[in-house]
């Protein structure tokens, strides 16, 4: 059993969060190690480094803009941080919120107290894979009278739930990142392990999921077979979502092997019965009666072994009383004679 150093685990957790992990908002990120700006932070070693502003010390007075420094036009920022994990690089977008942790730096051998900030992946503010930015709308509206009219924006989840899909305010998420309102999260089933990219690319480590508890419109096409058991593993790698989906990006979707841009299915006991074959009619050579040409010598040997198999009776026409009687093909019968007939007796 794990030891708990504090008598109150909740208190310990809160203390860790308050003193160690700090939420900050990303102002900019270095993705090109060859620039002069990157050179100031270590060149290529600075790839992934973010410039952030703290979000918990802002003055939220109604007459000032507490997030005035978050735009790129503003020079100010509160600090920089590097990705925490060496094996996982999930680069945040501008105005996404990340947790930072201050801990040992590479200068540790020279200065035991040397510390720098590292950041975790973005906080799942909108519970959406495409992005989770939280911009202060007032910074991006030309009409400053709109400064504090951002309630719709925040409550609606970055306007993503506007059914008509229109976004009136152009808020940069990066220098070239293109917001796509129709990107949908992947619909999960019980026990699924899903990895989602920002652009509809996904990896599902799932299983056959067959239950009356699953609504009809949420049933998948890999759980239909009669042989499979619930829990039979399936891995689906999908590079982008289907292009014919609606713009309701908050509604989850499923993989579709036929309309997803490209995909790999690794099945264990499933049937992908909606899989559309590119050449469905080109199956001629299967399911036929084959005639295998026989070797002449083999034919001859068969004849010698059993000549009767090769005897075919011919049609015989018998004329009787000017009446022609045509017989059908008759089987040849072996003629038998007695010893007396043969003159042996």
């Amino acid at each position: 059993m794990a030891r708990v150093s504090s008598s109150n685990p909740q208190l310990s957790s809160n203390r860790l969060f308050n003193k160690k992990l700090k939420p900050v908002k990303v102002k900019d990120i270095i993705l090109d190690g060859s620039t002069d700006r990157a050179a100031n932070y270590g060149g290529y070693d600075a790839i992934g480094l973010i410039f952030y502003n703290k979000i918990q010390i802002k003055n939220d007075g109604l007459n000032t803009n507490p997030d005035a420094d978050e735009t790129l036009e503003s020079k100010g920022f509160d600090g920089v941080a590097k990705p925490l994990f060496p094996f996982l690089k999930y680069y945040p977008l501008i105005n996404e919120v990340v947790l930072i942790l201050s801990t040992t730096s590479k200068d540790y051998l020279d200065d035991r107290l040397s510390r720098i900030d590292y950041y975790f992946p973005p906080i799942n503010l909108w519970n959406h894979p495409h992005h989770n930015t939280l911009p202060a709308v007032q910074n991006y509206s030309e009409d400053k009278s709109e400064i504090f009219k951002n309630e719709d924006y925040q409550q609606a989840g970055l306007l993503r739930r506007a059914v008509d899909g229109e976004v009136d305010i152009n808020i940069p998420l990066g220098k070239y990142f293109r917001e796509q309102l129709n990107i949908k999260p992947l619909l999960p089933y019980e026990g699924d392990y899903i990895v989602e990219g920002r652009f509809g690319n996904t990896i599902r480590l799932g299983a056959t999921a067959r239950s009356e508890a699953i609504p009809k419109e949420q049933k998948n096409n890999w759980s239909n077979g009669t042989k499979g058991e619930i829990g039979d593993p399936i891995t689906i790698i999908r590079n982008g979502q289907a292009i014919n989906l609606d713009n309701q990006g908050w509604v989850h979707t499923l993989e579709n092997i036929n309309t997803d841009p490209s995909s790999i299915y690794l099945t264990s006991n499933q049937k992908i019965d909606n899989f559309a074959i590119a050449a469905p009619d080109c199956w001629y050579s299967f399911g036929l009666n084959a005639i295998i040409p026989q070797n002449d010598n083999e034919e001859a040997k068969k004849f010698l072994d059993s000549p009767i198999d090769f005897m075919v009776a011919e049609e015989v026409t018998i004329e009787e009383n000017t009446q022609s009687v045509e017989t059908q093909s008759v089987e040849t019968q072996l003629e038998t004679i007695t010893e007396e007939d043969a003159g042996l007796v």
Partner: protein
Amino acid sequence: MAELKGEIKNLLNITDELASIQDSGKNPILTPVYPNNYQGKQVLLNADRIIFNARKQRSEESKDAANTFEGGDIHMFSHNFISFSSNGSIHLNTLFPRVDQHTNTQNYIMLNSPNIFIGMDTVEGRPKNYPTQNAVLGLKTQETLNKILDIFKQLLDILSDDYSHIGDNGHPTTPKGEAFETIRKDWYDSKGEPEANSVGEIRKMIKDIISRHVFIKQ
């Protein structure tokens, strides 16, 4: 379960199997499950275009090594069928030698099977049955045609030298060898051009009738 012990056993005699199907008149059992009807362990790759590319080239050292290449291959193995189907065409290409090279002895396409079917017999314009026409062996054909030509030439020799006809007036005629002089000329040394409209011209045509690049087993 079959125990292989280091050798590949012929677990299924395809020829016998197909023959038994033919004899019994039953539907053949050797048909794979259609892709979207198959339920089991499989990998589906689906995209607008799929490329398999084995990029390693033969090194200069390996060109001198005997029979063994390391990498640069694509291999597919299966217990039952390997099937290629296309609404369009299927191409198999190998590299040809450069223009200044006059022989092509290195690259080839190999089809190795006890039975090889090319094309299918159609019913109402649709592929329906396996083909039943036999292929022709090139060398055997060449040998047979040369034999026919030899006999034909012997006949010409007899007609021109050794035989007399009975003419219209009842007297024997004198053989006219010069009448067969051109047609009797053979082409033994396989050099130069044979006489036009001669046995030799046909001999040369028989020599050229076989392909130098396509071979079939006996």
